[in-house]
């Protein structure tokens, strides 16, 4: 075989072609690249003047369809910014405030009447009347759109909605519904010209901001609605972008590329540019009491004692949480003020496990600790700490980090079979503000997110649910205490706090609803002097 001599004319030509082709492709790529880069340059330059509020989220909203706004990623952009509901719940006090409805009352046992705010127009100039409200409720609840908010808030309930006059709306339910206004606070109002056949990607509403453009994958731009019925927001424009890595979001705040960043990580964020706020979330290990060794209450209680809550919070959560003794944080109806976190006692926990082992409980059977990637900052370290602490008292634990879909399979009924004993790290947020929501999901023996329970606990929960006022609070508090004593399905970790990145240039006070609904109208430029 001869080595090729480069002077063969045929080869020469072929190679010349190849080189030429490569060069052409390269030039094309470079020019198109610059074209792409430059097309947005103008929009970006506009942001440096302080008239555009720049926000960075964790992910792109899948859609801005208002009837999907119970999805966090959608709701955080849409709710109270682009569209508004009839009434809204104050996240701090739990009271309902008027928004597009000025007042409401129960006129019949099954009927509620709402007074519609006059003089409001949609962003497309159309006036807002009771007909639009009726249309929006119908569209979200009674249509075939399969809206997320329908399943989330109303279940199978069918509503009968009538616009009695332009300013009066009646809503009739099949059964008496004392919390109908609270439920309707999840329905965002859209004009009656909105499609009922398909979901809309970019909605029109009555809110303080309107969508001007959505560059898929890149950004969503909003502009102030100059005809807004309420107080005009401070910033004429707002723009959302998204980055999934927390350290990049933090870097954007530090560098001044963004004004507000959601879900920062205490390790990578500059302390001066962040605000911590209670986000109503509570973390705990759900122990599957149907499987040995977790079917022994001594083992379950030992796990509670083995967890070094203070240490985990201090070292892994940046001190941004409070040790928990129950699934609902303070402020929720039914929170038991008398419950104290289980003290951290390794020796006592070890003794309990040994006692159980002596009684024939197979304490060495492997327990799977399931946690979800990205549930909160530092999740994998927390899982490792829990694994180590459970191992140390004589149990055999392995970690399984799962993605959301896999985690949900472990979390929801029907629970997976043949997976052995599972300790599931859950994060529960009670946004409705009433312990009934927690108990019906997590504590009753056949609750969708509960692995087991007792008849007595079910009875007490049912009894508490029938009460109201002070008696209700007391009864639910007792339920929570009772479950800790006699059922112990949960080893609590902490009441969490969120971390919001906030540039020194803006002023905003996050509250427990910020993660689901970030009201841009409440954001303003920082007063001079704050740096």
């Amino acid at each position, binding site marked *: 075989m001869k080595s090729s001599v480069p002077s063969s004319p045929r080869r020469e030509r072929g190679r010349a072609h190849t080189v030429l082709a490569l060069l052409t492709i390269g030039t094309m790529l470079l020019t198109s690249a610059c074209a792409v880069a430059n097309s947005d340059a103008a929009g970006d330059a506009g942001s440096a003047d302080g008239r555009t509020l720049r926000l960075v989220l964790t992910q792109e909203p899948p859609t801005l369809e208002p009837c999907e706004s119970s999805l966090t990623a959608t709701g955080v952009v849409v709710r109270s910014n682009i569209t508004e509901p009839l009434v809204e719940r104050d996240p701090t006090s739990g009271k309902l405030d008027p928004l597009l409805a000025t007042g409401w009352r129960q006129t019949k046992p099954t009927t509620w009447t709402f007074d519609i705010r006059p003089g409001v127009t949609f962003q497309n100039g159309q006036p807002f009347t009771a007909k639009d409200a009726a249309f929006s409720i119908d569209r979200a609840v009674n249509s075939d759109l399969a809206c997320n908010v329908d399943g989330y808030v109303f279940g199978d309930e069918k509503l009968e909605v009538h616009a009695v006059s332009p300013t009066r709306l009646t809503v009739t339910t099949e059964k008496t519904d004392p919390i109908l206004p609270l439920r309707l606070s999840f329905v965002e109002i859209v004009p009656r010209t909105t499609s009922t056949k398909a979901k809309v990607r970019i909605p029109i509403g009555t809110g303080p901001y309107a969508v001007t453009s959505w560059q*898929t994958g890149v950004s969503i731009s909003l502009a102030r609605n100059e005809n807004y019925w309420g107080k005009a927001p401070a910033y004429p424009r707002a723009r959302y*972008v998204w*980055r999934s890595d927390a350290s990049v979001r933090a870097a954007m705040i530090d560098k001044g590329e963004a004004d507000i960043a959601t879900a920062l990580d205490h390790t990578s964020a500059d302390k001066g540019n962040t605000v911590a706020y209670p986000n109503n979330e509570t973390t705990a290990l759900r122990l599957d009491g149907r499987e040995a060794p977790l079917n022994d209450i001594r083992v379950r209680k030992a796990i509670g004692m083995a967890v070094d809550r203070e240490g985990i919070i201090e070292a892994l959560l940046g001190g941004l949480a409070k040790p928990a003794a129950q699934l609902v944080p303070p402020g929720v109806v039914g929170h038991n003020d008398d419950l104290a976190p289980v003290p951290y006692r390794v020796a006592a926990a070890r003794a309990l496990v040994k006692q159980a082992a002596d009684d024939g409980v197979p304490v060495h059977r492997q327990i799977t600790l399931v946690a979800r990637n990205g549930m909160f900052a530092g999740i994998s370290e927390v899982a490792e700490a829990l694994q180590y602490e459970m191992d140390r008292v004589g149990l055999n634990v392995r970690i399984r980090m799962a993605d959301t879909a896999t985690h949900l399979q472990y979390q*929801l009924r029907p629970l997976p079979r043949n997976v052995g004993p599972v300790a599931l790290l859950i994060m529960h947020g009670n946004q409705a503000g009433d312990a009934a929501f927690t108990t019906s999901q997590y504590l009753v023996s056949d609750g969708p997110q509960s692995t087991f329970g007792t008849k007595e606990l079910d009875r007490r929960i049912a009894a508490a649910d029938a009460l109201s006022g002070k008696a209700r609070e007391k009864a639910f508090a007792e339920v929570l205490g009772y479950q800790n004593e006699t059922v112990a399905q949960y080893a609590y970790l902490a009441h969490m706090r969120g971390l919001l990145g906030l540039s020194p240039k803006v002023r905003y006070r996050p509250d427990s609803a910020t993660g689901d609904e970030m009201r841009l109208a409440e954001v303003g430029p920082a007063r001079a002097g704050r740096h």
Partner: protein
Amino acid sequence: MTSFLRKRIISSAIPLVFVVLGVFCLARLTGSPVDLYLPLSATPQQRAEFSAAHGFDDSIPVQLWDYLTNAAQLDFGTSLRTGEPAGTMVLDAFPVTLQLAGVTMLLAILGALLVGSLAAYRPNSLIDRIAGLLSMTAASIPDFWFAIVGVLVFGVGLDWLPTSGTLGGPEIWVLPIATLLIRPFGVLVQVVRGSMVGALSAPYVKVARSKGAGPKRVVFGHALRNSITPVLTVAGDLTVGLVNGAVIVETIFGWPGIGKLMIDSILQRDFAVLQAAVLLTAVTIFALNILVDVCHALIDPRVRQAVPA
């Protein structure tokens, strides 16, 4: 040439079918998306309705048949997440990755040819040793680590470059490209250097030297030309590997490319988008392989006979 091309394309179409089948079945094994798309408190009846509406209650063969018949009419289904046609989403994301990968490979090849031949010019010289060490180090740095360090150092610390995103001037390309570039560049420098050192001891170079060609002309004129072939081959394979890098880079820098789309659709169990994205990537990789083969065949007539099929 055309018959070579035709054979090559036909024999590539069969694997494509396997790719479609494989990704379809694998995706379904990862579990049902129903829980992800319904509220936690959804009733069993709502779950059943959702499954029925999206065809998840059919058996796998039935679902596959539906998918294939629709795909044959270029209907790749609808995204569960956004409600948009999967085909459109994939086609929107594709150019971003194509540009990233194209610019990266162009820079990597040009840079590697330059550095590699400088190194091969004097084997074991200082330049050679530095180039060798740098290229080997570059090829073994974890890309996500490089990206985040880049953001912290050049984005925040030195304030030279934007941290991330696609909004802005040409400088937004620097960090993503640099992250994607390090590995192909490192590998290619070694390939160029290796094949140049080999070529420099080949008979035709001796002939050129004996005819009085200077060392520069020998290296850059004769030997460099002949090392194009292995560089092309390796570059083709590295371009395929760039899809992996694109997943990381697009995730960190927030670029709306196909890598990010794929990883998101896996996490969200958005099967239609995943299938469409993998199909498009596979088609591109096939096209790329064929392009590399054609280049080879153009350069070297012997390859034309040697190619199977």
